[in-house]
């Protein structure tokens, strides 16, 4: 699977999509779901929760391991994907459409510090080998 060029990424394997209204959507990458294997539980952050960049805020738990999900930016959680509670496998099927939560960033400038697709791909590739 290719790493979508229109998204930003973190070293901790989250993807971040900038929405037109200034909010961002967050999920975990294809590489992350591949490392975790079949997901069985997903815990998303509560709407209204304030997150600091790098704070652990969600969990993607697979048959074999639990993966912590971190906030790529500081901000307030404005939505969470409730669908994942019953169908965590959607992340395995397509990690880039199965979003986890939306954030209203405190400082949109933080986005510039995230990785682009090429930089993230290099990290994912290095981990595989």
């Amino acid at each position, binding site marked *: 699977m290719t790493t979508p060029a229109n998204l930003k990424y973190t070293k901790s394997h989250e993807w971040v999509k900038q929405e037109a209204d200034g909010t961002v959507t967050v999920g975990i990458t294809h590489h992350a779901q591949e490392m975790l*294997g*079949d997901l*069985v*539980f997903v*815990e998303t952050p509560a709407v209204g929760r304030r997150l600091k960049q790098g704070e652990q805020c969600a*969990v993607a*738990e*697979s*048959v*074999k391991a*639990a993966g912590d999900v971190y906030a790529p930016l500081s901000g307030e959680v404005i939505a969470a994907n409730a669908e994942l509670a019953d169908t965590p*496998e959607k992340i*395995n099927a397509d990690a880039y459409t199965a979003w986890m939560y939306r954030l209203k960033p405190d400082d949109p400038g933080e986005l510039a510090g995230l990785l682009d697709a090429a930089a993230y791909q290099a990290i994912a590739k290095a981990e595989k080998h």
Partner: protein
Amino acid sequence: MTVALKATPLNTVHREMGARMVDFGGWDMPLHYGSQLEEHHRVRRDCGMFDVSHMLVIDVRGGDSRALLSYLLANNVDRLQRPGKALYSCLLNPAGGVRDDLIVYFLGQDWFRLVVNAATAEEDYAWLTAQRDLRAPGVTLAARRDLAIVAVQGPHARARVGQALPESAAVAGGLAYFSAICVGNTMLARTGYTGEDGFEILLPAAEAVALWLRLRELGVAAAGLAARDTLRLEAGMNLYGQDMDESTTPFETGLAWTVDLQAARDFDGKSALQNARPLRHALGLVSIDRGVMRRHQKVTTAHGDGEITSGGFGPTLARSLALARVPLAVKPGDEVEAEGRGRGLRARVVRPPFVRHGKVLITI
């Protein structure tokens, strides 16, 4: 420096099928072929096959082979009187700790066959050889690395094996549980590690690929070690090196039923077990809360702490389950707490197995 992994005769086939391979005790083995959950369900509902050729087959032959095994195994090989009968047993150390667990098949006059775990195979073989030299020099031991093992498991396993190996299956058709039969160079055993019906097929390495492909054509799903682990956990079966090891007696890991202290015979570890006063026993846990219990997590009970020895998610249960070593006073029905990630996970104590023959056996 890299150490070359050992490969089974099916290694190339696994790779061609897109398996994710892992180092399992020095063997390059398939973890899954895409989805371990799907493979698990296929075995419970239909039929799946596993390459378990990393396990070692050891043939024990000679007039004193029964006497030798009678001393080395904690279970009593005298229970094996009819050729083809199989017995599950621990191999103990003098302190009563578990060196390994194995299946011993009685195949004929003065001929027994052991199937031991891959990770312990070399130590087992060295130990058996030393004991043979000491106690029964006339017995021959043969490590059968020329054999492959394919486990075909699930409600439709026997029908599929019947189609794949018609001449062998005709003979093996009426085989009872925990029995085996040799047809030419192939041994069919009605044993397994999934809690489902099925066969473990021991055959010449050169024939393994053809059998695997034939089964695949018949619609049998290839399943990897990951599914094998969730299936055995739901079936309440121990995994050596995880649920027990040399520091654990069979009494502490739910295997008292495999130890025969009644018969007059002496065996390695017997006196230690006769004097053993275990403080903990092994029981099952099923999660009440959402989340997955994992190995090594602490279990808090009303009677003191315990520890999870195997934990994970049970696809058939659709919940997390675990095997745990807990204080003797802890009983099925108790509610305990597994140390989760940041918060505790409530769980119900149950007596394994959790699932057998596709059916959930426990209630929460």
